[in-house]
Structure formats: structure tokens, C-alpha cells
């Protein structure tokens, strides 16, 4: 809502309050004002001039030489380039010494040899947005009404010495979608009296009865509670008075003609949208408010044919729909320059219905915006009378006697019980009864004493947002001033703040992984359908969850796996020449087995990592080291070790979709429920690497729910060893396919309690042992906690180990 400061001063004395001060006052009171632009963009010295003569320029086809009476006593000779200039017009004349927007100074000049003592201005040259002008005034110079006084300052004529308060209204304050509503607000803030228009003033009905011309009815009482209309005969269509046009332009509404302009003017004044029908085009002398019929068509005022649906409310005559209620009029009943009799409508339509229709058809207007937020039914009749009186005055209309009305209901005034204790208890203030009563009276809310320090407050219908005592508490608070509310600490609530176990572990996970050199990314939760299919096992059996109205195909379904997001991030980084990547993301994936959701999907927390390029880049003292599978695995091992899960987790060769089939492990976790796979670590499949333009890239993704569940933060201290260990290294030759993990498992099982640790320290393949063999070197450490081991014990245990290796793997001890 754009509020003209000058227009507002019609209703309330703003003396001593500048537009900027008013804006600050309103903002601090809860009506936010974005900016307060001046309507004068830098105009001075421009006056109304009369074009006495217009001659063609002797040396230039497109120029005219005009004699102008600008009320200065002497005629001015001005050369003008506009094609619409003509003798007999009143036009804005920038005299020598005038200033125009953009720092233009008007000087005496010669144009193609002819002296010019000023400049005739277009609207744009005066800093007026010409989109807001009637079409015929958008081209060429601005032609003013014939009765405009010669010599008058153009700032006065066009009301440019004004400021606009640009209100950024919250949805509850639709009362301020009207000048009168804003005036009430300013009255409450300032405590000054209001001076509102008398809607019936100037309304002198003829002896003819409205009911002889038009009858109205409401067929759908749910969606329209009041419909009123007046019949106005013999209107003369023409431009509205300049002051009406000025105010519309100030409010950002384009003037059209006197009828439309007056309905718009009254809409801005009261917040009640009005509509005028050409009475000659209404069949059967009746208007009905009904639902559209299936398949019914209506060409709206914007010349678009609209296919109506049965939930849409229409205004209809005896034969056809003539308007979309509250949204837009029909072309079939439009007021044109030939119109003589009009039917003026003022009604209350259901906000939800208007909202649904206007959204569905993509038709949003000043009118629909007001209906959507529920207009004040008390203003329906006032606005009708006010507009009728103005049409009588400015379009020479004759208003017939009586109002055609169909009324379903009239809302009861809202009464709210309010107590001083409730206010002070809720705000933490110590306001007195007197202060409360003063604030309520400034709001013009009627308060009757209903008990000791309590009132029954009657809320005027214009404030439909106030329905409960807390709404009144807010009114009191904002008019008292939020700054005046004290600053206190919560009393009597002692609570302990802490993270839950999953929250603490998630943070720990983030710390461990970033300490391991990973950079945390945050990626979008929505992706393309194609992306959800890249990693079948990680996406599981889920059905894709699609947005009903996505903004783009790339962001149309919820992600079912994290890795594609990291692949995109990696690809993006490579285009930015960030080649060595170590990325991490902790986030949710969304799984459901329903094709159409009837319940919420599962949101599974996961962690994913990606390594690409070099572990270390080349430096002056070492060469680059590219990442490999074991870097990714090493990070996971560290994670599981730190979270106390190392004993439960195992890695098993696997071939999930999207991964290199020979370089990938399933990560399993062993619990009392058995062993389950919680993720994968491996090289990205070369085809995916190619698709994303990535070099060799290693990735992992794990499910976090089991991590949160089984993470064990308990530290079990063991006394330091007091007896020496005995170390034995062996190297065994086995088939290449034998997994190193299988060897260490077998050794651990065979050696018994004396074995403290076993570690692979070398793997050799090569000519010396045969192409299908490999040699694995292992370091075994034996120790007893309570005594020094004897050589015999160790030898015996070690023999068991060698025997077991030979039996299970055909392992030969390498000499």
C-alpha cells in the first residue's frame, strides 16, 4: 500500500510531523515502512502554460514553434519537438531557470536558428512514471485539463509536492489497505482526532426506485454474505478530475476514466473494492451471486477467455456470468465510452474463495488482494454511497432511490474480556488501569468495566485481526512501546542444557572427519530423478519422492543417496581448478516404499565422503601422492575406532552399483541383531567418473542410525604391560585371491589368548613367487599379562598359527 502523505492529511492533522517522522513512528508501531520517496523528483520553475499559437519550424520538419502564455505577462516563444503539441492546449512549461529531474537546468537556447525561451514537458520529463498515466498521455507532452489555471506551479497542479509512505504490511493488518484504516492507525499512534469523509454527502437520489431497474440475490450464501448495488443513470464518461487522478497515481494506480477512477479511489479510501457494470448489457434486470457452472466461459476485462470451474464464484445476470466475483469483471458488461447507465457493486465475498480463484487463474489485482484478506463488511454500504456520490458529482450521474441489497448475515461485533493482570503478566510490565484505558481509547476500542481491573472490549469491525485477549495485549504493548517492556530473566525454571547422544556423536563425527582433512559440504536435499538411480544399493528399495511443483527438473525429487551431491560438488570444484578434493557431508536421505505418500517418509541420517586428486600435493621436498582406496578406508577406520565401533565393523569385498567392482568394500556392523551392511567404501565406477568428468575418485557413504545406536564412548582402562612381549614375524605365500583380512582373522583365532596383536606389514607379488601367488608378511606380538612368556609357549602357539594357515589357505612359510 502506497500512502500519500497529503491525502492522509485530509483525515488527520499531520502538522509538525514530517513524512519521515511519521514513517519512523509507524514502523516502531508495527506498520513497517520501507521508504518514503518524494513525489517531486527534482522539478522547480515549471508552470501551466497556454499554447496560443503553433507554427511549423522553418528549418526542421519535426519541430514546432509555439507562443505560450505562462502567466508571466509576456508571451514566451518555445520550440517543441513533440508531435502532439497543438494550439489551445494547456501544458507544463519549464521556464528559463527551471530545473528538471536529472539535474537539467533550462536555459535560453536557439534551436535550428529559432530562439526558445523554455521547454514544454512530457510527464516523464517531470519525473512521473508514465506507466501510471492514461494511455493517451504516455506519448509526447503532457496535456492538462482545459480548465487548469495558467501560470500555476505544476507541483501544485499534479500534487507532486507530496511524499509516499510505502507500507510493507503484514497479512494481519489488511485494515491498512485503506487510507481510512491508516488514518485510524495514525490517530492511535499520535492521539490526534480523525476527520473522516461523510459517505452520503452529495448523494441526492432521484424519485425513481432502484428496485424498478435491478434486483440482486445470493445463491451461494457460504461465499458471499452481503451484496449491494446502486443504479446510476445518465453518466458522462470522461476523465476524472485532476485531483482524483493525482491521488491514484500517487497510490500507484493508473487513471482510466471517471467511473473506474472513482471506484478505485473509493477502494483506496475505504479498502472496499467496487465494480461498475454497464447496465445496458445486463440481461433481465437482475444480478445473482452464484457458483460457476461446469465448463462455463467468461472473457475477462483483460480480453482473456477463462474456463470457469464449479468452485468459482461469479456475478451473473439472468443469462450469463458477467464477472468473476472479487477478481475481475467480464468484458461482456464493461463500462465503455458509450455507457450511460451503470450498476455499481459493493459486496463482501469470501476471502478464501477469491484467493483460490485468483491464484488458479493467475489474476491478482488490488481488488482481489483486499477481498482475500476479508474486507470490512461495515464499509460495504459506506463505500457504495461514497462512490455513488462522487459519480453523481464528477460524471453527472443520477442515482436512483434505494439500494439493491441481498444480505445473508452481518457479523456480530467482537467482544473480548481483558484484565490488567493478563496484560502485565504476559508482558512483564507494571501498567496501570488508566494507561490501559488511554491506549484503548486512542485505538477507538470501546472498553466497559467488567470487574476490578478488567474490561469488556468491543473491537470495531475494521480490525478483523483482533479476536482474542492476546491480540489486545499486543495492541497495548505496541502502543505503549516495545522499548518500554523491561528486560528480565526467566524466574523459577532451572534446566540443564545438553546434547542428546546422537547429537553429540554427530558433532564428534564432524570433528573426527574434518580433523582427518575432510572439508564439510552442505548440499541440496532435492535432486533429479536420474541422480537417485546412480547408486542402487545405497538408494535401497525406495520409491522416488517427487515435489508436486518443482522449480526445475534438477531439483524435483528428494535425494535417496548423498553421494551424487558430492559428485556434483567435486565436478564443480574441478571446473574451478580445485583439483585435490576431500569432501564430507552429513545429511539426510529420504526413503519411502509408497508410490504416493500417505505417511511421512523415513529420513535417514548419513555421512558421505569423497577423495579425489592428491592426498598431498607436490612440494619442494616431496612429490605428489595420489589418493587411493586405503585413504578412504583409513578415515572410516579412524571414525569407527574413535566412536568405539572398531570391534563391530568389518569390510567385505562387494560390487554395488556405481562403484568399481574390484575396489569396493561393503561396511558391515555386527550387533545382537546380526550383521548388517551400513554402507560402502570404494572407488567410483569408471563410467561414473567419466560422466562427472572426474579423475580416480574414492567415495564412501554410511548409515548413521546404527552408528548413533552402538557408538560406545566408554573408555575401559587396562593396566600397562609389566612383562615383555615376544615378537615373531612371518611371511607366507598364498593364492592371490586370499584376503589379508582372512589371514589375520585365522591367526587371531588359532593363536589363542597369548597373541596381543597381528599386523600385515608387507604384501609382495612378483616373479619370485609365481604370478598367481602373493606373499604376505605379518608381525605377531605375544604377551602374557601376569608373567614373562616362555619360549616354549610362544613356539607352541606360533606352530598352531602356521598349521592353521597351511590348512586353511595352503599357506607356505616363505624363507
Amino acid at each position, binding site marked *: 500500500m502506497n500512502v500519500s502523505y497529503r491525502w492522509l492529511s485530509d483525515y488527520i492533522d499531520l502538522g509538525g510531523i514530517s513524512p519521515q517522522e511519521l514513517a519512523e513512528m509507524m*514502523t*516502531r*508501531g*508495527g506498520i*513497517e515502512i520501507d521508504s518514503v520517496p518524494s513525489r517531486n523528483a527534482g522539478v522547480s520553475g515549471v508552470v501551466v502554460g497556454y499554447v496560443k499559437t503553433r507554427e511549423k519550424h522553418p528549418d526542421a520538419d519535426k519541430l514546432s514553434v509555439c507562443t505560450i502564455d505562462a502567466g508571466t505577462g509576456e508571451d514566451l516563444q518555445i520550440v517543441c519537438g513533440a508531435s502532439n503539441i497543438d494550439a489551445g492546449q494547456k501544458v507544463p512549461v519549464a521556464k528559463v531557470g527551471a530545473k528538471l529531474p536529472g539535474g537539467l537546468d533550462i536555459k535560453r537556447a536557439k534551436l535550428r536558428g529559432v530562439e526558445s525561451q523554455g521547454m514544454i514537458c512530457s510527464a516523464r520529463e517531470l519525473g512521473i512514471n508514465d506507466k501510471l498515466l492514461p494511455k493517451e498521455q504516455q506519448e509526447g507532452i503532457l496535456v492538462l485539463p482545459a480548465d487548469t489555471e495558467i501560470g500555476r506551479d505544476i507541483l501544485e497542479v499534479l500534487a507532486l509536492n507530496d511524499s509516499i509512505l510505502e507500507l510493507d504490511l503484514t*497479512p494481519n493488518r*489488511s485494515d491498512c489497505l485503506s487510507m481510512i484504516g491508516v488514518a485510524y492507525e495514525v490517530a492511535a499512534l499520535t492521539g490526534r482526532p480523525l476527520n473522516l469523509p461523510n459517505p452520503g454527502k452529495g448523494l441526492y437520489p432521484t424519485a425513481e426506485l432502484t428496485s424498478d431497474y435491478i434486483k440482486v440475490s445470493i445463491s451461494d450464501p457460504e461465499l458471499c454474505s452481503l451484496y449491494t448495488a446502486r443504479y446510476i443513470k445518465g453518466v458522462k464518461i470522461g476523465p476524472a478530475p485532476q485531483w482524483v487522478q493525482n491521488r491514484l497515481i500517487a497510490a500507484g494506480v493508473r487513471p482510466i476514466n471517471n467511473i473506474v477512477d472513482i471506484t478505485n479511489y473509493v477502494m483506496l479510501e475505504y479498502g472496499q473494492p467496487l465494480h461498475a457494470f454497464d447496465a445496458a448489457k445486463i440481461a433481465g434486470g437482475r444480478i445473482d451471486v452464484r457458483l460457476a457452472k461446469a465448463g462455463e466461459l467468461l472473457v475477462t476485462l483483460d480480453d482473456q477467455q477463462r474456463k470457469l470451474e464449479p468452485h468459482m464464484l461469479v456475478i451473473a445476470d439472468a443469462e450469463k456470468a458477467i464477472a468473476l466475483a472479487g477478481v475481475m469483471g467480464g468484458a461482456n458488461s464493461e463500462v465503455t465510452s458509450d455507457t450511460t447507465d451503470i450498476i455499481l457493486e459493493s459486496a463482501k465475498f469470501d*476471502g*478464501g474463495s477469491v*484467493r483460490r480463484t485468483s491464484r488458479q487463474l493467475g489474476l491478482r489485482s488490488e481488488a482481489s488482494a483486499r477481498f482475500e484478506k476479508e474486507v470490512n463488511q461495515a464499509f460495504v454500504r459506506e463505500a457504495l454511497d461514497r462512490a455513488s456520490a462522487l459519480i453523481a458529482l464528477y460524471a453527472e450521474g443520477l442515482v436512483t432511490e434505494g439500494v439493491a441489497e441481498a444480505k445473508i448475515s452481518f457479523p456480530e461485533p467482537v467482544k473480548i474480556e481483558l484484565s490488567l493482570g493478563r496484560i502485565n*503478566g*504476559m*508482558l*512483564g510490565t507494571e501498567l496501570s488501569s488508566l494507561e490501559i484505558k488511554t491506549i484503548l481509547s486512542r485505538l477507538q476500542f470501546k472498553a466497559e468495566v467488567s470487574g476490578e481491573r478488567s474490561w469488556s472490549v468491543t473491537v470495531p469491525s475494521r480490525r478483523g485481526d483482533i479476536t*482474542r485477549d*492476546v491480540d489486545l495485549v*499486543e495492541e497495548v*504493548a505496541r502502543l505503549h512501546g*516495545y*522499548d518500554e*517492556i*523491561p528486560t*528480565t530473566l*526467566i*524466574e*523459577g*525454571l532451572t*534446566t*540443564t*542444557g545438553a*546434547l542428546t547422544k546422537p*547429537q553429540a556423536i554427530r*558433532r564428534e563425527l*564432524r*570433528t573426527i572427519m*574434518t580433523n*582427518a*582433512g575432510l*572439508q564439510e*559440504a*552442505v*548440499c*541440496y*536435499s*532435492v535432486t533429479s530423478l536420474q541422480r537417485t538411480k546412480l547408486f542402487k544399493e545405497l538408494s535401497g528399495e525406495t520409491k522416488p*519422492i517427487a*515435489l508436486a*511443483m*518443482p*522449480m526445475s527438473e534438477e531439483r524435483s525429487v*528428494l535425494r535417496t543417496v548423498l553421494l551424487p551431491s558430492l559428485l556434483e560438488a567435486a565436478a564443480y*570444484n574441478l571446473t*574451478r581448478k*580445485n583439483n585435490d578434493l576431500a569432501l564430507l557431508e552429513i545429511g539426510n536421505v529420504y526413503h519411502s516404499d509408497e508410490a*504416493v505418500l500417505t505417511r*511421512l517418509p523415513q*529420513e535417514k541420517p548419513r555421512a558421505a565422503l569423497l577423495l579425489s586428486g592428491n592426498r598431498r*600435493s607436490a*612440494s619442494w*621436498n616431496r612429490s605428489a601422492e595420489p589418493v587411493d582406496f586405503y585413504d578412504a578406508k583409513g578415515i572410516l577406520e579412524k571414525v569407527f575406532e574413535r566412536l568405539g565401533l572398531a570391534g563391530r565393523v568389518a569390510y567385505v569385498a562387494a560390487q554395488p552399483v556405481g562403484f568399481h567392482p574390484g575396489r569396493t568394500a561393503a561396511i558391515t556392523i555386527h550387533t545382537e541383531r546380526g550383521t548388517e551392511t551400513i554402507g560402502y567404501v570404494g572407488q567410483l565406477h569408471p563410467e561414473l567418473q567419466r560422466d562427472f568428468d572426474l579423475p580416480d575418485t574414492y567415495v564412501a557413504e554410511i548409515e548413521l542410525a546404527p552408528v548413533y545406536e552402538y557408538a560406545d564412548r566408554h573408555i575401559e582402562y587396562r593396566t600397562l604391560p609389566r612383562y615383555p612381549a615376544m615378537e615373531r614375524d612371518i611371511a607366507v605365500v598364498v593364492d592371490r585371491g586370499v584376503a589379508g583380512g582372512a589371514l589375520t582373522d585365522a591367526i587371531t583365532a588359532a593363536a589363542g589368548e597369548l597373541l596381543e596383536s597381528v599386523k600385515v606389514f608387507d604384501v609382495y607379488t612378483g616373479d619370485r613367487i609365481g604370478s598367481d601367488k602373493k606373499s604376505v608378511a605379518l608381525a605377531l606380538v605375544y604377551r602374557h599379562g601376569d608373567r614373562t612368556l616362555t619360549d616354549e609357549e610362544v613356539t607352541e602357539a606360533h606352530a598352531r598359527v602356521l598349521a592353521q594357515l597351511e590348512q586353511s589357505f595352503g599357506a607356505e612359510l616363505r624363507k
Partner: protein
Amino acid sequence: MKERLEALRQEALEQLQSVADATSLNDLRVQYLGKKGQLTEILRGMGALSAEERPVIGQVGNDVRAAIEAVITEKQEGFDRAATAHRLQAETIDVTLPGKAVNAGSIHPLNKVAQEIEDIFIGMGYTIAEGPEVETDFFNFEALNLPKNHPARDMQDSFYITDEILLRTHTSPVQIRTMKAMNGQTPVKVICPGKVYRRDDDDATHSFMFNQIEGLVIGPNIRMSDLKGTLLQFVQEMYGPQMQIRLRPSFFPFTEPSAEVDVTCAQCGGEGCRMCKHTGWIEILGCGMVHPKVLEHGGYDPKEVTGFAFGMGVERIALLKYDIDDIRHFYANDTKFLSQFAKM
């Protein structure tokens, strides 16, 4: 014999005086003090002395040996020090060359800021509540006093999946879930961080996905003044003790009274600058007293308890904190951007 010993001392000390290296020093040691050295040679003649003379000459001999040894030791230490110094000199490296890089990761700035905010509230006795990102219309809107067709739904254009299920547009549904889980018990004192989604075209200040942190306190006697006090404490811990807050009346369907909260502009300290549009204040939060309908939906009697709630956008806090020019940087994951937040 005594004279010979004294002469030997004299000669040895003179020679030692001018010795230049460890090898020559060792040669002199052998020459004078070795088993076949000159001192031994002289003392071999002790047998010819009388019983009275023997201890006297023996003493002299010992003195001479000690004197020579002392000088040799001193000389040896000097040569050792010089040798060490020489070796260390040879080992000199260029200390201005860069060290071996240790790969340092980094926490994402949004999570870093969120953790910082969480920690402040944990210190104030709050716990952290989380809820689903895919929500029902009931929890996201209806229970928060936003019935279908409510004009305020315009403020939050949403991504629906079905008519009843959508991506949450704020973390407020977690408040309802928390209240329901509390079963009417007080106090409630939680903050609710998480991702939220709105149908906004992405630009420098808008992202269709962003992060919020909301707070909720419910108790028998919670006042708006407590809300002010809580937010002041938060802001001062987050930005410094010199910061002030300012509340302006506003509207949210789920709170009444409602307020927008401005903090002192950190850039200019409240003087007025480009960042705060010359007002001295920066808007960072929305808040208010929990609406009675919301309390009812959460299972509380609004006559028995009151509460306050507040919410902030993590992106906005982070943009202001680090003076980042474009919200889209948070989701592009350019490592040149991410690595800047590796500091503690």
C-alpha cells in the same frame, strides 16, 4: 730427577700451548703420558732413589702428570666444541622454506555458526530438539494457527509433495512435536535447528533451502520481558557485550504479541553505515509470545501456561558474521570458500 721432571712439564706445556688439532694433541699425550712416554721413562728411574726421596719425587711426578692431563683435557674439549660447531654449521637448512603441509579439514560455515548458537543456548539450559524435514500440513501450518487459505501462507510458498505432505517451510513444527511429546509438562526449553524449504527463486539473498534455529520456552509464568532478556543475553554472547537489541511489533500467525528483533549493527557499532542502511540496526530475528491456539495444539491450557518463541535464519547470521556477499556460496561448496572456515 726433580729438575728433569720440571723440565718435562715445562716442555710439554709449551708444546701443548701451540697444538692445533685433535690428532696432534693425541700424539703429544702419547709422547708424554703414554706407557712408553717420556714421563714414564723418567719415573722408571725412581728405583734408584733413596727411600726418603722416593715419595717426594713421586709426588712431583704426579703433579706433573696432573698438570699435563689438565691441559690436554681442556684442549680436547675445545677441539670437540669446535668440531660440533663445525658439524652443526654444515647441517644448516633454509628455515624460510614452507613446512610439510598437514591436511586440515573444515566445518561448513553454516554448521559452525549453528553449533555456536546451539552452544550458547545449551549454556542457558536449553536442549536441542529435531524433527522431520518432510512434514504434514497439520504440523507445518494448521497447528501453528495457519489454517488452509490463511493469507499468511503467502509468506511461505511451499514445496508440496501431496496435498497433505510438504517440505517444512520453517522449523516451527518441531515446536508442536516437542510440546506434544512433553504431554503437558513444563518447563519446555528447547531450540530447534534444521533445514527448511521455500519456493523462492535463488539470488544473492534468497535460497530455496536454508537453515533455521528456533527457540521455545513454556512455563507457568513466562513473560515477554523474559523473551527480551533471553535474546539480549544471546546477542551479547554471540556478538559481544556492547550489543543491544530493539524489538519492533510485527506479525507471525503462531505468536501474539509478535516482534522483529534488530541488533546493533556490528559494522558501525550503531553509528549508521551502508550495511545497516544508516539505521544503526540490523534485523536478525523474529519472535513473540506463543499464540494460545498453538499452545492448545501442543496440549497446553493457555490459561495455565505462557511461552515465548523465537526464530532466526542461520544463513543470515553467517552472512552478517563473515560479511559474505552471496548466500549461494553456502551451497556451491567451492573448496576455496570452505577452506576459509578452517579456523577454530
